[in-house]
């Protein structure tokens, strides 16, 4: 029996006073690769923000990696995020330090102490995304695709139970998007659960998987037609 890693029941998602999504019922199981699609402004990012605690769930129920989203306390948010790996469209790397330092910061912030273990872990994740030789560089010295690979490596550091990728290919050209997608696919094949928001339908066709759609303030699963 599959284990739900993310569950939302009758949830409503609001940005300030405006209701973005209502009556959301979603379940993501361990090991799945799930797309979240929808037009710009349809509520994909708000949906993601609810999941990593950047918006508060006020109506309905929500469970993610063992945390209750309803009434999630401020002090618990860092610990929720440690169980998640978050990848953003604009990479969000710390620009004032090298790639290695970016990754070491995450490890230190999440309680790692041993220097050797930390260096080993950084090397492992960079190797996974094919960036082993670029650790000494600053983010601005890398291409968009490379920066996104580093962001994925960062998301992998603490073996997250769920990776949330908010339009990870949104800033990339089609070829680089495919390269980043390949990385995410490989990670998924290794057992990581991934929820990826995108409006790049070409990727859905190339890498078909379970798809949720945000439309008209609702989220529903899109039934795939067999080709």
């Amino acid at each position, binding site marked *: 029996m599959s284990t739900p890693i993310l569950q939302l029941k009758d949830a409503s998602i609001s*940005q300030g006073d405006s209701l973005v999504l209502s009556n959301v019922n979603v379940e993501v199981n361990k090991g799945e690769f799930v797309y979240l699609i929808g037009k710009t402004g349809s509520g994909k990012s708000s949906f993601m*923000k609810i999941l*990593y605690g*950047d*918006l508060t769930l006020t109506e309905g129920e929500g469970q993610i990696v063992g945390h209750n989203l309803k009434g999630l306390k401020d*002090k618990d*948010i*860092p*610990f929720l*995020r*440690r169980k998640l790996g*978050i990848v*953003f469209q604009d990479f*969000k*790397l*710390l*620009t*004032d330090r*090298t790639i290695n330092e970016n990754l070491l*910061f*995450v490890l*230190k*912030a*999440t309680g790692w102490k041993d220097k050797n273990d930390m260096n080993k872990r950084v090397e492992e994740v960079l190797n996974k995304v094919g960036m082993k030789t670029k650790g*000494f*560089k*600053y983010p*601005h*010295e890398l291409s968009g695709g490379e920066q996104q690979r580093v962001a994925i490596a*960062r998301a992998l550091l*603490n073996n997250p139970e769920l990776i949330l990728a908010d339009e990870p290919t949104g800033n990339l050209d089609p070829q680089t998007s495919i390269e980043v997608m390949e990385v995410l696919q490989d990670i998924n094949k290794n057992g990581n659960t991934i929820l990826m928001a995108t409006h790049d339908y070409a990727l859905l066709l190339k890498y078909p998987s379970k798809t949720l759609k945000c439309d008209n303030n609702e989220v529903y699963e899109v039934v795939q037609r067999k080709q």
Partner: protein
Amino acid sequence: MSSSFENHQKRRLISSYFSVVLSIALVLFLLGLLGLLILNAQKVSDHFKEQVVLTIYLKDTAKEVEINQLEKSLAMADYVKSTEYVSKEQAAEFMKAENGEDFMDFVGYNPLQNSIDVHLKADFVTSEQLEKISEEALSKNFVDSVDYDNDLVTLMNNNVKKISFWVLVISGIFTLIAVLLINSSIRLAVYSKRFTIKTMQMVGATKQFIRRPFVWKSVRLGIIGGILALIGMGIVLYYLNKTFPELQLLSNPAIITMLFVFVFMLGIIITWISTHIATQRFLNLKTDQLYY
């Protein structure tokens, strides 16, 4: 390439830190000077009060023994700081030197009187005390008259009260300005890092973990600013003491040390609290609120 970027980053950081350090140093320096002024206000006002002269004019018939006795009794009185006997000849010399001509040439004789100049201790320079001393002197039959500038004394006492009050008010305002200026410099420095702070939160860092290096960095700037302010205060104190040794600015090293410690600690405390509040503000904001 990375080293040139690193150097560029360092230069940028140094110049932005420089303005923070400079504003901290300047504000603390001015605050320290004000502190010195308050601590020495009493000495300064005493210094001016003790310049007031009460002159006892003696009759020409006064005997030397009477004059000596009066001078001795005045010197022993607890309200007198110093006395000086000025003979009529000396007075004529002073007047000659002051006017540039010998008035005795056309008057034909010296109309001036022998006198005793009395400098009183600051606490006794009040209209009431001066009147009392004057009456006491006049009771002696060899004393002709007593002269002092009563208006000047009243004016001086009123002004000292007014100045002390305004110095206190200005100190309060200045302390507030100091806190606001340093706070604003630090808030700007933290504001420029708001997206970095948010990114750090996104990867699972706790607020305390994120805040710590910001606070530590600001406290270091506060320490540097404080040291610069103390050096400035030290230089000013040295030159003031050299120029006005009578004020005895360094006579109480414990108080001066306490002022220096206060100014130094103020730099640390203000930067600490300001950074704590500024980072906390951005840590508590949701991502979308960072753009407003």
